[in-house]
């Protein structure tokens, strides 16, 4: 068995929320939360939109295209925003490919 390696998020990666992480809308607090072991993360509105598109079907390019359409912004600009965010979530293990 080879050593597991760090995930590098690229435009072609197909991200999905890790099995241990649950994205939920919390009625009590009226906000989106990412529940992970022994922690509650409070993702920004943008992060929530990205996470909702991490369905294991779309690649990062398709996620960016979808957001670019919604915000009428250039895809490259969106990519520049979402790649570091996805990389940071992958480094914490909350998003996998």
């Amino acid at each position, binding site marked *: 068995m080879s050593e597991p390696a760090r995930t590098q998020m690229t435009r072609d990666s197909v991200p999905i929320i890790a099995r241990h992480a649950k994205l939920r809308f919390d009625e009590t*607090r009226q906000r989106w*939360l990412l529940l992970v072991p022994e922690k509650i993360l409070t993702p920004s509105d943008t992060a929530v939109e990205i996470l909702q598109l991490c369905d294991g079907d779309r690649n990062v390019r398709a996620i960016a295209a979808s957001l670019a359409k919604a915000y009428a912004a250039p895809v490259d600009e969106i990519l520049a925003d979402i790649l570091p965010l996805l990389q940071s979530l992958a480094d914490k293990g909350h998003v996998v490919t």
Partner: protein
Amino acid sequence: MTTTAKEPAPNVGKPMPGPPIGLLAELTHRCPLQCPYCSNPLQLKSVRNELTTDEWLRVLDEAADLGVLQIHLSGGEPASRRDLEPIVEKCANRGLYSNLITSGIGLPRERLEKLAAAGIDHVQLSMQDADSANCDRIAGYEGAHKRKLELARNVRALGLPLTLNAPVHRHNLDNLEALIALAVELGAARIEIANVQYYAWALANRAALMPTRDQVRRCLGVVQAARERLKGVLAIDFVAPDYYAKRPKPCMGGWGRGIIVVTPAGKVLPCHAAETLPGMSFENIRTHALGDIWRNSPAFNSYRGTAWMPEPCQSCELKEKDWGGCRCQALAMTGDAKATDPACDRSPFHARMVELADTESATEPPPFRYRR
């Protein structure tokens, strides 16, 4: 019988708490292991006092209604209860994130499959050491290590997320590299390296468990290097050793701020060691509603917020960061539960705490005092 939650009293200097985020469900004190740092009280509750299945299901409903997000199913060994499956199912039905904290004993593959089907979200497995003989010795159970490895492999084979829980002390700190490697090999996404905190059984075994300053220093280096090397592979959570610390931990994230503990017999506590504090009484889920206890219990309100704090906490800029540290440790070291946690170097008792650690760790360790 449950009393209805009263309207919250007008604010008289106590902050009204927000909803709790986590509930630690101590389902039972029964456990096949007898780790010398167990957080269960020295006076264990017998099985006939345990809450029934229906009572636990009601606690979970009330917790969900109150805004709790995560349930930590613990014990003792939670698998000692035959009704773990319906308890997990209730969590899933109510959108509560369920975290199973297990010794790994009493969870054969078939039972784990049932828990997976019931919707368990995450499994946290205790690991006493990477070395099997030493693991079994610390756990006081022959064959524990082998069964833990089996459970870990089953957890991963079923696609369930796994955390290794490694309480560390003088008898295993030198094997920390191996513990981290074991976590990677088993496919855990996370390891929690927790220096033993000296309450309950750990306090009774403190002289046997206290690491040396050198061990702690090396351990910090190992953790730092592993975090860098294993970025994106293994998340490493680290609980620092209080006796060699400069600042206290925000115990339970602050008293009555986010966590509720329910004992096997239904007592509701702000922290699992709270029963060691004298003159404090705790409501029971059998007679009071959870929300009522959370908002109105004198025990929950006694150290909530910052108004209760004496100096040096009261004028400290960190008081809303560490919330004064741990009340139980303050009591144990200073005789006063209101005192600043002596883990803080601003406490007049801090030097004594450090001296205790240095002295005990330099002495030949006494044998473990086990639960049985």
